[in-house]
């Protein structure tokens, strides 16, 4: 990726001067420098899609909020990662996610190890002001080792991307659109019948919630291992 000469730029994040390589994203630079920007669809080692909108930041001179995970830094940029307005939008965005499906942390396998739950804590979401949508969605336990519970899916597409970009199977994709979007395997068949699935389990490990989990895990027992991902990614890219 970073072949050849890469220029160094300087920018301000929350008032602090920081240096960065010109091909880095705002999110990367912010995290390297200890600034916290919440994310959900972002996952180190996977491509970024800018879908969850939690990493939106204010950039001086831009009348629109910019997606930190896909916006590259520029010389002289002045980035604000936290403001009352951003905090409020983030809280509402997480609130939207909670209202969308049937998230019940208390009886979830990922309770205590859930990215969505942590986000709620981080953005200070204490209650939901909008009505729950209560969609009636199914659970697919046909796979020998894993379970897909649509009730907890936030449509971050990490599973879709890891399966396509790292495992190369492209078993997962999305069907439908809008609020009716669902993750699917193959032709929306039962996961256990999938011809393309290699049962590698990467999708399960990258899933931020309890939407994908291992069979046999009881409530609060599902912890996800993700350290393999940056390693695999760098191997694929042929990096040192």
């Amino acid at each position, binding site marked *: 990726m970073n072949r050849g000469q890469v220029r160094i730029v300087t920018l301000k994040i929350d008032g602090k001067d920081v240096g960065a390589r010109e091909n880095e994203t705002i999110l990367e630079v912010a995290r390297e420098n200890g600034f916290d920007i919440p994310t959900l669809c972002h996952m180190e080692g996977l491509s970024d899609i800018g879908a969850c909108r939690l990493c939106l930041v204010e950039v001086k001179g831009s009348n629109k909020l910019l997606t930190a995970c896909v916006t590259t830094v520029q010389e002289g940029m002045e980035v604000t990662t936290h403001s009352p307005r951003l905090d409020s939008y983030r809280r509402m965005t997480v609130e939207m996610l909670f209202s969308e499906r049937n998230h019940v942390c208390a009886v979830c396998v990922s309770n205590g190890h859930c990215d969505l739950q942590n986000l709620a804590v981080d953005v200070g979401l204490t209650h939901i002001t909008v009505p729950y949508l209560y969609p009636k969605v199914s659970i697919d336990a046909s796979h020998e080792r894993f379970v897909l519970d649509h009730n907890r899916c936030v449509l971050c597409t990490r599973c879709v991307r890891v399966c*396509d970009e790292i495992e190369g199977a492209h*078993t997962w*994709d999305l*069907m439908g659109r809008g609020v009716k979007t669902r993750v*699917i395997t193959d*032709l*929306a068949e039962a996961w256990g019948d999938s011809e393309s699935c290699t049962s590698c389990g990467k999708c399960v490990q990258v899933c931020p919630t309890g939407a994908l989990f291992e069979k046999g895990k009881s409530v609060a027992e599902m912890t996800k291992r993700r350290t393999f991902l940056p390693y695999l990614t760098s191997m694929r890219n042929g990096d040192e």
Partner: protein
Amino acid sequence: MATNPRQSAVDPPSDDKRWRIVQAAMRRNGFRRDALIETLHAVQESFGYLDEESLRYVARSLRAPMSHVYGVSTFYHFFSLKPAGEHTCVVCTGTACYIKGAPGLLDAVGKEFHIGDGETTEDGKVSLLTARCLGSCGLAPAAVFDGQVAGKVNREAVVERLHAWQNGPAAVKASPESSPESEGSAVYA
């Protein structure tokens, strides 16, 4: 089988001649994966809808992941994964049609035939669909009966037309030869 999979197609699922149209569409685009939507159009035009068999065939032919093919097929409202009824009635729900009474048309069909958007009557005769603006705003509210656009329709006319479809299929099947007058009496307000 082919030596170069890019140049030759996977065998179609059956001897049905319509597969040739589908194959031609793919060949025209060099069996590239980006021709997926064009290919799905060809399938839908030939078979009326996209069934699982055809999706599998298209996926194999274009060497596209099945979930991708399914994802695309369900993203676009133009594609249908279910066979339509013998006759289709498309009600335009564009803005002009909406404010001139399209909801009333849907309501009337729903009450009379117990079908909603995208549904087919139990006898398989009539499918109801909606469209996002046919561009016939000047004739709002508009509806399409078996491919023929009719403007300024009203509830009674739509219900009457659908009843005629249900009761006597051959008698009223819209044909291009039918004069606008005979059509007008049935459909126009």
